[in-house]
């Protein structure tokens, strides 16, 4: 008999612990031309804002050593077009649909959550708190425990199904932030978002990205992500979703052993479109080779 791969977050069942990460899968349509999305544990959409956004001008991306920088800038279709054009497609696949939301004001998060709560096809929300808080001088919501907690509380109030708080790694004490968001009602925590980084063109003596700075992702950041996931999973009760540089089953298993109940695959979808599917198969194989019949049995079992 094949090992059980399904995991649960606050009553929401995932057929397997492999999801695609926000901003690295658009709204799922493109990848569905390559494989059946119903294979996935879940899809997290590109972060949605209330109104559509064009995002930053090009150049928006730069290749780095085993990683990449992006300054996409929350390019997205906005809430209304998402509901009319994107959600019906996603809902047609037998996988969990997690909508990532982002905003520059507390009310934007709250309005998004309220409207999305009406849509039964939205299985969970992931709250991207790595956005500049325009009301408080443009500092990221996710940079300090208090504003991070406030966003989650505002969303929790409006959305009755599972709420995932997605943390920024650019902080001194990630466990503090994780505590604050769980105290404010987050049912789960996902981490990490990208590390702040930049690159300079020595020929033109200007930044490589139009926005100056960008977010570093990909295999380069895996060790940082894994350390943060371990720390948060060890300290916090709610289920943790691991993200950062995962490109193989072995990478994903490291995160599960560190305490993540599920993982998200981001940048790897760019260079290996089938990565999520290969990871699911690889986890199954690992469990069988090591005589586990349930993926839940390995979660958080790393030995010191």
């Amino acid at each position, binding site marked *: 008999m094949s090992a059980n791969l399904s995991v649960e977050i606050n009553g929401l069942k995932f057929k397997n612990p492999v999801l695609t990460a926000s901003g690295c899968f658009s709204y799922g349509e493109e990848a569905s031309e390559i494989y059946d999305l119903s294979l996935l544990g879940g899809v997290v959409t590109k972060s949605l804002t209330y109104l559509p956004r064009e995002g930053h001008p*090009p150049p928006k991306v730069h290749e780095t050593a085993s990683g990449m920088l992006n300054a996409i800038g929350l390019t997205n279709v906005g809430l209304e077009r998402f509901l009319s054009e994107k959600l019906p497609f996603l809902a047609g696949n037998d996988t969990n649909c997690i909508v990532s939301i982002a905003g520059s004001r507390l009310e934007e998060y709250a309005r998004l959550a309220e409207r999305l709560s009406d849509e039964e096809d939205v299985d969970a929300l992931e709250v991207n708190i790595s956005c500049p808080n325009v009301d408080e001088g443009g500092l990221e919501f996710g940079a300090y425990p208090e504003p991070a907690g406030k966003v989650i509380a505002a969303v929790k109030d409006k959305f009755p199904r599972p709420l995932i708080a997605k943390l920024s790694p650019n902080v001194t004490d990630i466990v503090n932030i994780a505590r604050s968001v769980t105290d404010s009602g987050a049912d789960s925590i996902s981490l990490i978002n990208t590390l702040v980084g930049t690159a300079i063109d020595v020929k033109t003596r200007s930044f490589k990205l139009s926005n100056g700075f960008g977010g570093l992702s990909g295999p380069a950041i895996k060790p940082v992500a894994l350390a943060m996931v371990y720390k948060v999973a060890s300290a916090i009760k709610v289920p943790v979703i691991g993200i950062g540089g995962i490109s193989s089953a072995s990478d994903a298993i490291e995160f599960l052993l560190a305490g993540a109940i599920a993982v998200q695959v981001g940048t790897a979808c760019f260079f290996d479109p089938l990565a999520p599917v290969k990871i699911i198969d690889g986890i199954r194989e690992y469990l069988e080779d090591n005589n586990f019949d349930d993926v839940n049995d390995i979660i958080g079992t790393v030995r010191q």
Partner: protein
Amino acid sequence: MKKHCGRYTVTKKTFVSRSIIRLSFRAEEISKSAIPGQFIQIRVSDSFSPLWPRPFSIYDADTRRGEISIIFKVAGYGTNLLGGKKEGDSIQILGPLGNGFPIPAGGSAIVMAAGGIGMPPLYLLSKFAIENGVRPNSIIFISGARNKSQLFDPVELTELNMDLRKCTDDGSEGEKGTVVDILERLIGNENNLTVYACGPSAMLKKIDRSLSEKNISGFLSLEELMPCGYGICSGCAVKVFPDENRGETDDNRDYHLKRVCAEGPVFKAGEVMWQ
């Protein structure tokens, strides 16, 4: 449209010139559905160095043999590794990608403007056009490069019997001058034609301006950085003129963005907001 992703085998490798290489792959499904102007993403290394795959236009699609070919110039890190592949090696490919050119119908007067590594998709487009009833000698094919050794000049191109006009910046082969120079001379006399162009951005920008000045229709195939190649990252986006009737947006940009890999790589003349 269905996209295929897998490991495909190199069936043939030939050197078009010292730094220009043709590779063929056994890739039946891709060969069957590919249209001119579409491209494939090739992962040149199984390591993370480089991280991103590299995009290459489909140069030929041989449905009988179930093969596709690309022609590429060794231009940097990734193409250098790709140039090291041998017949029999297998390599990760995703394709076909993007929207191709509209195929010209019989009776059209056509100019193909190929700068440097812009030749491959225009070769395939010419082939399709001729199969579609366009007379070979009604296609003016301008193929230009900095100098002779950079010129993409395979026999297949000559064999199509088009009105082939080679040019080099330094005059080391064909006419002396850029593709833009030759094109501008042509459209100075005649504007009842359609231009299909592929090449470096600087060339496309100039062509785009010339076309709009003369009110000539055309299609331009763009090149951009492509982390994914299939529309999921938005990294390849270019500015286009904003939609007249787009609604309110959150960031009030004066541009609209289109993904070159998904909405392109072929854009209508006049569509792109050049930098």
